[in-house]
């Protein structure tokens, strides 16, 4: 397979929390239209890597280049990441329970004028589109005014994913987007990811359910205790091979 050159490159990423080393020098690349499955045991450092890439945490060491240009981590945060087209759906869905759906869709980047007043009518209209087209939630009788507190787990996940999809990001990172979903909803998430690929956008897909990852990813990166333990292209590994690789990454 003749894969295109990566446009995003993380190298030597290290991060520790107090005495706990979450990441100990991780290199990671992503090409346009590529889906990378990021897998590994609990506590391997997957979510930490996701949070560094999406601007939530600053790493202790390492660098990020985007389109060959270095990105300064000192001025890198969630807003900057979003502006560069990097969007994340975190493991803990990050929704304001008591807030209406439309506020949750636009939180942190409202459609606002120069004085900071929100164009509420426009946001509600857009929210309706997201609920209908991206999330398929409007069939459940959900309106942009409904509160997150009344949503089921699957609906919340749908909302969080819809939020990431709506802003035409180049990179969408999904941290365990299929846990606790019904089969039908899993299908929907996987087809989202496939759509991304069709649009030549890239995705990072973190999951413990290897069959989901194997179904959509082009490449697998296996993390173990803060390091990249193995890397495989899909053509070179089947599902059972992937399973044994995750169970004993060193042996492979």
């Amino acid at each position, binding site marked *: 397979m003749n894969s295109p050159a990566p446009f995003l490159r993380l190298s030597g990423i290290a991060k520790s929390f107090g005495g706990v080393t979450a990441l100990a020098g991780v290199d990671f690349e992503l090409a346009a239209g590529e889906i990378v499955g990021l897998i590994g045991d609990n506590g391997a450092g997957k979510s930490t890597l996701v949070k560094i890439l999406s601007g939530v945490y600053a790493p202790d060491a390492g660098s990020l280049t985007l389109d060959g240009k270095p990105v300064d981590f000192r001025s890198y945060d969630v807003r900057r990441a*979003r502006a560069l087209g990097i969007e994340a759906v975190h493991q803990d869905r*990050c929704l304001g329970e008591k*807030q209406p759906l439309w506020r949750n869709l636009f*939180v*942190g980047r409202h459609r606002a004028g120069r004085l*900071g*007043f*929100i164009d509420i009518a426009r946001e509600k209209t857009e929210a309706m589109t997201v609920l209908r087209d991206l999330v398929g939630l409007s069939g459940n009788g959900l309106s942009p005014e409904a509160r997150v*507190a009344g949503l089921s787990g699957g609906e919340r996940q749908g909302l969080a994913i819809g939020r990431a999809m709506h802003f035409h990001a180049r990179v969408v990172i999904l941290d365990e987007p299929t846990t606790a979903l019904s089969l039908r909803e899993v299908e929907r998430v996987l087809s989202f990811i496939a759509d991304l690929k069709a649009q030549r956008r890239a995705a990072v897909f973190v999951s413990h359910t290897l069959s989901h990852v194997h179904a959509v990813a082009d490449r697998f990166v296996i993390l173990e205790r803060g390091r990249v333990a193995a890397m495989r292209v899909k053509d070179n590994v089947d599902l059972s091979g992937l399973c044994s690789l995750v169970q004993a990454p060193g042996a492979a």
Partner: protein
Amino acid sequence: MRAFLARNATQACILGILLATLAVFVAANPRTFLAAPIYLAFLSTIPFTAIIALGMTLVIIAGQIDLSFPSVMALSGLVFATILPATGSGALALVAALACGGLMGLGNGLLVAGIGVPAIIATLGADFFWRGLTMLASDGLARSLVAFRDSPVHALLVGRLFGVIPAQALWLAGIAALVWLLYHRHVFGDALRFVGDNPEAAAMTGVPVRRTKTLAFVLLGLLAAFSSCLVCMEMGTWWPTQGEGYLLLVFASVFAGGTSVFGGEGTVFGTLIGAVLIGIIEAGVVSSGFSGFWTRLIYGLVVLGSVSVYAVLLRSRRR
């Protein structure tokens, strides 16, 4: 209509309570409560509480609390009551008092959002500190501002429009409109909601959590200082214990108004109605022939009752 009521259940609830209370007072004492003077008196006194309660609403929506505003009132009032006689400039005195209040709010914000001290402790400490400083700076002596009864700053702050309507009521209306716009329409209000609702989610979605908290404290400091200037002008004097009586009134207004004690949601309209309710209770109780000692007990009852009722309302909506 029904959907509107359902969405604004808390507002409807507090409005109902206010009307019921008013009906009781009218029945108990029609001569007082069916004539204009008592309502004009309310228009002159309620704004002092209501203006601060509006700022407190935003702080509580952000999941914080500020117990220091009584001392912020005292110290910024002292600044006002010192600079006004010294310079004769109302504008200078007002700006200095506001700056003082804003800085004290900033101090709370830095303690809470910067250092990470829980708001209840930080602002309690700040309350003692600023009250102590006020006592030291004033020698515990009151300041008379009677000489400024006819000054322009008096007319601007607490004059009577057409000889009847107290200017502070107009200030309140303007500030309430502004706070409503901020909370419902502005990104700052949105940030307040998410910071109070789920601070981790707010941070991960790019909301400037620390700046939002700090700004809420600054805004409350400014409003407390402004209210203090109004009080000084209306009463014609500054006194060292100024502000102390407002602690209960402000919290009673906010919680009776339906703002969640848990943060993340609140209503500007509710706080306004809550302040009116709290403001009429004292007059109503006294004019109904009870002693003034009853009012405190009733305020306490209002706070406990409303917080409990709203907690039950909230639980039933969750299901």
